[in-house]
């Protein structure tokens, strides 16, 4: 019975995995082919990898864009994680009616289509001369409602007794947060880090509007340039796409181990 159970699980997971990974594999195959072959649907490896890579780096400043995106993503991930987890924690551990209202207000801001905010935000940053400055991208990203929401929901599962015990022991509130809560919630922080990193890395519309010079452009913008000429070279585009995909995959890979912590014990 157990074996059949596992068998079914493996089949389902394998099918889902294959479907999930197929486009990614196609991407890796395409990067070795020439543009013409890609548009004609070739599914086998070719010899164009070196060609494509050298052309890609010659056409657009992918290296610099990569570094730009990395800097932004790291800074935003770390700061937003700290700021938002603190808030999410406080909403649960220090509940009050006032806080409930503030929480709903903050979450509601997630629900306005970003397009509506572009022009006001543009004016805002222009007036303090912060256009074409990475602060214009970092500052709005630090307060991320979905992260606050995420940490709040996960804090519900956090044992309050631990906190009470720590208070009795004489720990200050901020100490409890940094020394007890954060280490215990590694899994949450790891997954939140992935989400925050992804959100920053793939952020497109606002960096497009706020940045004015090619040297400052982030990777998605630069790759999109490659794809936008009316005679796009898909081999080069694939190089850009693979390069822009790899960091998130890497971050996921590294933080994955955190998911394995906290073994659930035998469910059977």
């Amino acid at each position, binding site marked *: 019975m157990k074996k059949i159970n596992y068998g079914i699980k493996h089949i389902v997971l*394998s099918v889902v995995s294959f479907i999930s990974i197929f486009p990614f594999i196609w991407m890796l195959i395409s990067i070795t082919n020439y543009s013409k072959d890609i548009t004609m649907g070739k599914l086998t490896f070719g010899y164009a990898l070196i060609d494509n890579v050298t052309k890609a780096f010659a056409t657009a400043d992918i290296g610099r864009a990569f570094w730009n995106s990395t800097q932004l993503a790291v800074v935003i991930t770390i700061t937003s994680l700290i700021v938002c987890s603190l808030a999410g924690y406080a909403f649960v551990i220090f509940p009050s009616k006032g806080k409930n209202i503030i929480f709903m207000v903050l979450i509601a801001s997630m629900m306005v289509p970003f397009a509506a905010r572009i022009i006001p935000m543009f004016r805002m940053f222009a007036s303090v001369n912060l256009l074409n400055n990475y602060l214009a991208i970092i500052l709005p990203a630090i307060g991320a409602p979905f992260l606050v929401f995420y940490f709040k929901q996960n804090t519900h599962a956090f044992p309050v007794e631990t906190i009470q015990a720590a208070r009795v022991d004489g720990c200050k509130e901020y100490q409890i947060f940094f020394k007890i809560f954060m280490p215990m919630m590694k899994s949450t922080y790891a997954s939140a880090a992935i989400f925050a990193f992804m959100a920053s890395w793939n952020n497109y519309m606002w960096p497009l509007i706020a940045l004015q010079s090619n040297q400052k452009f982030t990777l998605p913008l630069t790759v999109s340039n490659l794809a936008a000429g009316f005679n796009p070279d898909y081999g080069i585009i694939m190089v850009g796409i693979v390069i822009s995909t790899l960091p998130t995959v890497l971050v996921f890979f590294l933080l994955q181990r955190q998911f394995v912590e906290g073994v659930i014990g035998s469910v059977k």
Partner: protein
Amino acid sequence: MVRFQLKTKEKKILIGWSMILLAALFIIVFSYIPMVQAFFLSLKTGKGANLTFDGFSNYKRMLGDATFWVTIKNTLFYAIVQIPVMLFLALLLATFLNDPGLKGRGIYRTCIFLPCVTSLVSYAILFKNIFAVDGLVNNLLISLQVIDSPIGFVTDAFWARVIIIIALVWRHTGYYMIFYLSAMQNIDGSIYEAAQLDGCSGRQQFLKITVPMLKPIVFLTSVMALNSTLQLFDEVVNLTNGGPGNATRTISEYIYDLSFNYVPSYGYSAAISYVVFLIVVVLTLVQKGVMKER
């Protein structure tokens, strides 16, 4: 004695508020102020920079705008079909992957998460290729004799919507699976051990322990999924461009068109944005009500 207690209590309140201060500040300055300004924008009419105050006429205009209603219908359709399918699948996969006895979990996890990071541009090209009239899917269906002539997946109103939903489920399931998996990891293993000792079966453990403890996260994911699908833009633009006709067009696409493709009606698009906001808020409150009952 009393004075000392009051001090601690007040101190606690202060600390609690101080902890949310930064996040609240950032969100209010960079989200709310623009939101409020956008609201005032929605009260103006005119093309481009030629804006004049006109009260709620933009909102009235929406009522008679056929395209607006079509896009609302489409967007709600996507939400109703895609979200339950996707979240259920994510939950199922997370449950499977939460079993330490399952070999190769790390590989499955990575594979299933990969679509989330696969660039939209690349998988849009691939999807369109696969579902083209002479693409993989059609060839397969014809050779299996399920159909006799190829289906125009992208050019048929019904199938185009199906494709969008398939693309969304493919792309986002892994993302929500991570939410569930992470939350499951947070559940203390000793609870399950105790339940086991009490004689609960695996199924009972799942229903009586896992599910209730996941409620906050399920609520979170359904709110986020709703928010994300109601604001759907990227997939539709890249896969079907709203077509055929307006069959797959979403509200966000319409807002974008109104601002940047047509001669801009910034006030009108701001007004539509607010209506979208209201719809999301209302539906979220409905969800909250439903969750509370369960």
